[in-house]
């Protein structure tokens, strides 16, 4: 049922400490056996340590320095200066606010609700419609990030499709990417990301025994009441995992916004990843940009820990 982790885990998953049943081996042998058995893990471990843990540790270090791209031979340790600077920087606070808006609009409200609605409708719809709609929504999800960005750029531009439709309906049109860029990129993220929630919720709804909803239907409970009192409580774990994963995914969106608005105009769609990029490269302040990255990483880690608790997986 859960999204990220299809636990296929039979009992091999639960491991009591030490080799059970077998007589205790001499310590030297046992160590050698452990090492031999762990050997296949080493290529992965080397890659993970060098290219993932390494950069994260390096991130934690340079966030406390004044490292710059140009005009400086040595960097020096500046303590919490970068963080102090960030929390006094209006552009940073603006980016935090926009990240919040982007996440709430596109992930919590948009992807989650639309995904659930689509999944619920699909339970009742006829098969051809289900297949068609699923195919279209999933295509939007599988497309490369940059392509999705272009398609929605074309959609929201002044001379684009959305305004053409509004004109046709005699509604006021406007330059969406200029007046409401954060709304446009949030919609773009909903377009691109809803498929995931839809799939998670379809799987969850399929697991609800038919008898329960049918009994409620015979008792005369309306669709909304059934949704609220029966369905939602039964899939609450899926809701939790889905919200976590959507949030984590949304926190790291870069390409989509970069293609559509470059974070502009005037920072009006500059979420934290774009702010980080601008500080580090356009302003050459790697130390400062990294401090922002570290904050983003910490927020992400917090969500990741909550997600693990929710999953309560038996590793």
């Amino acid at each position, binding site marked *: 049922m859960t*999204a*990220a*982790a*299809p636990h296929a885990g*039979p009992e*091999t998953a639960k*491991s*009591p*400490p030490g*080799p059970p049943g077998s007589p205790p081996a001499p310590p030297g042998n046992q160590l050698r056996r452990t090492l031999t*058995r*762990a050997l296949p*893990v080493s*290529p992965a471990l080397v*890659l*993970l340590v060098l*290219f*993932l843990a*390494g*950069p*994260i540790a*390096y*991130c934690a270090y340079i966030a406390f320095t004044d*490292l710059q791209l140009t005009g400086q031979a040595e960097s020096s340790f500046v303590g919490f200066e970068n963080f102090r600077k960030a929390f006094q920087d209006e552009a940073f606070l603006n980016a935090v606010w926009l990240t919040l808006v982007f996440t709430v609009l596109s992930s919590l409200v948009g992807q989650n609700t639309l995904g659930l609605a689509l999944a619920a*409708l*699909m339970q009742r719809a006829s098969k051809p419609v*289900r297949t068609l709609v699923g195919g*279209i*929504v999933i295509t*939007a999800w*599988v*497309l*490369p*990030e*940059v*392509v999705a960005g*272009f*398609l*929605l750029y*074309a*959609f929201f*531009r002044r*001379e*684009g*499709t959305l305004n053409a439709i509004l004109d046709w309906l005699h509604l006021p049109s406007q330059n969406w990417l200029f007046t409401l860029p954060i709304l446009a990129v949030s919609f773009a993220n909903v377009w691109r990301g809803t498929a995931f929630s839809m*799939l998670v919720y379809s*799987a969850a709804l399929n697991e609800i025994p038919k008898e329960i909803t049918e009994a409620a*239907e015979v008792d005369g409970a309306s669709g909304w009441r059934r949704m609220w009192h029966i369905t939602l409580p039964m899939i609450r774990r899926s809701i939790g995992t889905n919200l976590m994963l959507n949030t984590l995914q949304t*926190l*790291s969106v*870069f390409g989509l916004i*970069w293609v559509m608005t470059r974070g502009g105009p005037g920072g009006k769609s500059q979420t934290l*990843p774009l702010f*980080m*990029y601008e500080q*580090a490269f356009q302003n050459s302040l790697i130390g400062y940009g990294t401090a922002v*990255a570290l904050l983003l990483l910490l927020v992400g880690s917090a969500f*990741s820990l909550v997600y693990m608790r929710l999953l309560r*997986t038996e*590793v």
Partner: protein
Amino acid sequence: MALTLTSRRKRHKLAADAGLLVVAAAFCLPLAWVVLSAVDPDANLQVKAPDGLTFDNFDAILTQDITFTPLLNSLILCGGATLLTVVCAALAAYPLSRFRSRLNRPFLLTILFATSLPITAIMVPVYALFVQVDLIDTMQGTIFFFAASQLPFAIWLMKNFMDGVPKELEEAAWTDGASSFQSLIRIVLPLMGPGVSVVTVFSFVMMWGNFFVPFMLLLTPDQMPAAVSINEFFGNRGTVVYGQLAAFSIVYSTPVILLYVLVARRLGGGFALGGAVKG
């Protein structure tokens, strides 16, 4: 009673169909733009019926510089990184799935934790680090980073698939004197073929679509994969030829869509669910 229930169901079905079709139409608009513009000799930013059917846009972009080099770069990057990811993940998953050790749990928990970290956040320090160790603007550096960023999820997925292969079959092979490595190659991996192909296709699709990693780590235009080179349509070429941009988008997106369809058919919805941690 039963009759009203049936007719109510029928009405619900119609309503659900109608609702879904409305949403689908909205989702379709951006997709329709790319398909229609690609064959339109006079494409602009709107969804409109083409002014005639043409393949000139495809002709114009199917050149060494615009299409073939970037796609080849994408293939080298994503193919190399996928190979590395799958081999390392299969090797790492084996002892985690087969042997009991007190290290398994902490390792798997760390891996699970790492699967959902926002990798975007560490791209700036990775850039700084790559400059220091001279890996910046190299294909191999980018491949290593790609593989490392994909590994936690690949190991996790691979281990879960491997747990589904019964251990008895290997035990028979062990009695016959096969080593663990032999039984992994000869028995376990063939039995979990669908699982391996899911990990492979998923890793490949993720990397093929990834923009930020090559955007940060590669600098030379000749090395750019399609994810980054597509930006060129906006940059130096003056006015944007939207028809060509659309045609290129289609050429660049087709492989991942085909791969997705291939694997999704084989495994039903499960792949999609297993697959989406880092959209």
